[in-house]
């Protein structure tokens, strides 16, 4: 692992290595509860709380946890904080807690949280882990709010329950139903890939930043770079090819 500055630890998770939009982690809650902005906000804040607290605790205890049982230990610590979040939400905002239903306890299974523990908190000092968790949590919050905004805007024509478009707007019911979740994230990823491809072809065909892209080889960007390479290859090739000689 290469050394990073504290600022990098914080900023990295927000956009460049966004847990949801780039690393494709923790998709279940993002798709399932993002049908309104209020639900998204509650889920985002709950996940942030769990991620932050478990990162701090695990990073504090990182030298005490035996290597062989670390995953089970992480999950137990995460489950403890999820229980705290679950009961707190039930007490503070019972309506939203009911709307989120089983997805609050399911924060335990959010691979984003376990992933940060395994990749970062179990190896780094407490301060850095807290920064990393905060950055990743904010990244998650941004992604789920983005989904929630798009889906509530199109699906019910409102934001946080406030009507925006007036009575003549015909809501796209499909957007607040399950297929809308899949379609929205599909379109968001498409826009990101398109933007990345444009950026890659505008600049010189630089290698895509490490760790970006769903399967380490983002197809869209990769082929964009390939489109570019033959041209560069041809320029280089003419120097040594007989026909290129003057």
């Amino acid at each position, binding site marked *: 692992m290469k050394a990073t500055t504290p600022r990098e630890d914080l900023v990295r998770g927000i956009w460049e290595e966004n847990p949801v939009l780039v690393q494709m982690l923790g998709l279940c809650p993002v798709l399932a509860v993002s049908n309104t902005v209020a639900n998204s906000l509650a889920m985002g804040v709950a996940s942030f709380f769990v991620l932050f607290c478990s990162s701090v605790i695990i990073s504090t205890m990182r030298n005490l946890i035996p290597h062989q049982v670390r995953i089970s230990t992480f999950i*137990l610590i995460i489950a403890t904080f999820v229980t705290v979040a679950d009961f707190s939400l039930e007490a503070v905002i019972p309506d939203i807690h009911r709307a989120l239903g089983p997805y609050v306890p399911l924060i335990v299974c959010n691979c984003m949280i376990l992933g940060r523990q395994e990749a970062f908190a179990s190896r780094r000092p407490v301060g850095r882990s807290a920064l990393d968790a905060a950055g990743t949590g904010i990244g998650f919050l941004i992604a789920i709010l983005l989904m929630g905004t798009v889906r509530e805007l199109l699906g019910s024509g409102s934001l946080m329950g406030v009507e925006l478009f007036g009575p003549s707007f015909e809501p796209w019911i499909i957007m607040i139903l399950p297929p809308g979740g899949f379609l929205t994230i599909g379109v968001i990823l498409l826009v990101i*890939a398109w933007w990345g491809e444009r950026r890659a072809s505008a600049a010189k065909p630089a290698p895509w930043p490490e760790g970006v892209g*769903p399967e380490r080889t983002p197809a869209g960007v990769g082929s964009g770079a390939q489109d570019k390479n033959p041209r560069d290859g041809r320029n280089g090739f003419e120097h040594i090819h007989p026909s290129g000689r003057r």
Partner: protein
Amino acid sequence: MGDLMWILVSAMLVNNFVFFYFLGLCPFMGVSQRMATALRMGMATLFVMLITAVSAWFLNAFILPWAPYLRLISFIVVIASVVQIVEMVIKKVSPTLFRDLGIFLPLITTNCAILGLAIFQTLRDYAFVQSIFFAVGAGLGFTLALVLMASIRMELDLADVPSVVKGTALVFLVAGVLSLAFMGFAGMLA
């Protein structure tokens, strides 16, 4: 009996875990590239679901009434141990399958479909037999989703799609259309 069949069909088709509840998306995206692997992953998940349903029922009936705040933690511990046992059995019985499933086998522990099953079962107060039917339905539905997606992705490999769409975005759009199709089963409710 009609009630039990209804639980099974509803968990499998109408409220499919992947397309309706968005549970188990990681293996759904990760293991749905080849048909054979998808089928085996589905079967392994079905098996774990069955054992989880039985264990969760025992916990709910005999232990958790006295300590409700331990619900989540005890479920997770049980699931983790079950997955560990299944992993050892598969490694012994079929090393090929073990290699094919790779990292996704231990990841069944953090597969939200499994924990989701236990939580739904608790929320709906299912009795023992009902839990079994629910688990079988959910497992079959998960397998169905994986197999459907795998067959579509195998065709997509040969298709000439624009480079921007290729990869995860396309899989999500296809999943959206499949989810739309599965909503048609909601008509069975009436």
